[in-house]
């Protein structure tokens, strides 16, 4: 065994921030009745905050468990730097997990929960390190309590501290905030992001909550039915989705059927129910035949018929407002277009525009650089069913 390999599998010498990439190659996990993960290839650079995002049953948790060593893949490999850890036992890999529902040991107090990993590795100065770690998560005064005596948010931070204190090369977070209420969740998202920046370790975060993934992660991989649909920064995924699944799962999208009429240079022109719209070539993922023209609701501008609209290029008239919901920061309209489809449009409540009421005839437009074009072969409803 090489020196490096020894280090990878020797938990008494955790490298802590020395930083090696996590690489999954053709990783597959089959269960008796279905394939949870299908030939997954993924490289996660050291030090990043990486999110695996997808609906329940998409294979993200299975992937995480294989990285943690809790499940064995059917085929494929997992490498940390140059060392293969595919079949290494969980307690012999420099990877720690923040479990869903935390899995805190109910018979041990907070101090001993956090100390657990260090004690198993016979590290010295356990008490001092635990003290520091509890300070990092602001629980130093609770050390003697038992887990059931603590609130959900506190338990969550104990779980984080218990994993982090081992300075793993990769920290796995399995739906870490799923059991918290909305307000607490927002606070913890920022907290976890702060801690990640502070310690500089690789965090791999599994979640079905797209907002959570976008708030925290540098890079998101959207997973569906055992494969990765698209990977990139939150802005990249949101602004330029490559599949209908990503377009619907990450935020909401209007997807309008159209036919490509011309593709030259850096612009693709699409005929959309008689209206010509143009789409930048780097956002058009088909260049001929039929496709879905996609536009995010907050990019759609609505104005009463005949009033000026700021959007050169893609302009359509003949819409009728069918539904209005006021949600505070914005007003959400449903507009029925002449071809029968209802488009969503979110208008910021800047106070500059008057509210439109249901039944109002409106014009609709958007800036061409905000639209995207997806292949017509993809399911228009993929990923659209809300789960959370």
């Amino acid at each position, binding site marked *: 065994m090489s020196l490096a390999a020894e280090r990878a599998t020797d938990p008494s010498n955790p490298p802590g921030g020395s930083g090696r990439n996590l690489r999954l190659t053709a990783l597959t996990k089959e269960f008796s009745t279905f394939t949870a993960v299908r030939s997954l290839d993924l490289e996660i650079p050291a030090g990043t905050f990486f999110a695996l995002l997808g609906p329940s049953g998409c294979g993200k948790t299975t992937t995480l468990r294989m990285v*943690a060593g809790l499940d064995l893949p059917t085929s494929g490999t997992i490498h940390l730097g140059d060392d293969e850890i595919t079949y290494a*036992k969980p*307690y012999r890999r420099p*990877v720690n*997990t923040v*479990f869903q529902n935390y899995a805190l*040991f109910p018979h041990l107090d907070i101090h001993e929960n956090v100390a657990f990993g260090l004690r*198993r590795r016979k590290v010295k100065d356990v008490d001092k390190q635990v003290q520091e770690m509890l300070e990092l998560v602001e629980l130093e005064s609770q050390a003697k309590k038992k887990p059931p005596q603590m609130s959900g948010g506190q338990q969550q931070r104990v779980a984080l501290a218990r994993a982090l204190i*081992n300075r793993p090369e990769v920290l796995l977070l399995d739906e870490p905030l799923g059991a918290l209420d909305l307000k607490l969740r927002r606070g913890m998202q920022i907290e976890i992001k702060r801690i990640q920046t502070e310690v500089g370790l690789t965090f791999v975060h599994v979640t079905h909550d797209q907002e959570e993934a976008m708030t925290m992660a540098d890079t998101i991989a959207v997973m569906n039915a055992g494969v990765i649909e698209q990977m990139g920064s939150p802005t990249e995924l949101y602004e330029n989705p490559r599949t209908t699944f990503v377009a619907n799962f990450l935020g909401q999208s209007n997807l309008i059927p159209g036919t490509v009429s011309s593709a030259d240079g850096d612009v693709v022109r699409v005929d959309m129910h008689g209206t010509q719209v143009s789409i930048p070539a780097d956002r058009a993922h088909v260049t001929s035949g039929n496709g879905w023209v996609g536009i995010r609701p907050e990019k759609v501008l609505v104005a009463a018929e005949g009033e000026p609209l700021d959007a050169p290029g893609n302009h359509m008239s003949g819409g009728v407002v069918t539904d209005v919901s006021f949600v505070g920061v914005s007003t959400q309209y449903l507009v029925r277009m002449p071809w029968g489809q209802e488009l969503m449009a979110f208008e910021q409540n800047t106070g500059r525009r008057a509210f439109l009421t249901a039944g109002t005839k409106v014009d609709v437009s958007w800036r061409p650089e905000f639209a995207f074009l997806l292949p017509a072969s993809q399911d228009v409803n993929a990923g659209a069913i809300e789960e959370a």
Partner: protein
Amino acid sequence: MRRGRLTGYWLMLPAGLWLAVFFVIPFYSLLATSLYDPEGSVLTGYDVGYRFANFVDVLQEFWRPLLRSLTYAGIATLICLVLGYLLAYAIAFKAGRWRTLLLVLVIAPFFTSFLIRTLSWKLILADDGFIVDALQTLHLMGENDRLLATPVAVIAGLVYNFLPFMVLPLYASLEKIDGRLVEAAGDLYASPSRGFLKVTLPLSMPGVVAGTLLTFIPAAGDYINAQLLGSTNQRMVGNVIQDLFTDTGDYAAAGALSVLLMVVIVAMVMVYIRKAGTEELL
């Protein structure tokens, strides 16, 4: 609660009365019997003599069977704990979808006559049975050594008969353990054996305590195994009490010995529970 305030009493009353009259009061009768003047008999009647000397007498005469009962029951309980833990652990964590079926199989022998099963052991351990033959062929036993009528046979019988009492409470507490806790221990660098010692075992302590009590107590009072599988050299305190009541008719001594057995058991249980640190169990 919304329902009538007296409903609880009425529902509890019949069972409570039955237990009071036929379980609690009899202990008082037993206590009284244990203080009878042994000069009397069932036919002539007894004088309640507050004769505490009865206890000294039975202790002097029967300390051997009493000590033997506690020793045999203790050894049997330890063996049950090891075997029972293995079985309960396998069912709780390793059996997958066969879990319920295996549990049923644990309970099933329990529903078949205790006596017939013990007689079956007599057959298995018999001098010309296959186990003795095999051990003799392997020279682990001498030609004239026996299994029957030895402490080994009696303890084996006790282990066999009380194993389900160990397995069920152990299973109940193991089954409650969240599998993710064990995974978390592994994730935090505990090898399977460390994870077991640091997480699974402490969390299953309620089951260990309940199981050892449910095994030890009836085993200490049992005399069927000693009678069928042992000889006069393996007489346990239960044999003595039974004989004193039914053959000798010495009620005073029998009562005193019963009370003594109960006192010793209660004392041991108290010390044990204190040691195991699970007072909240009871």
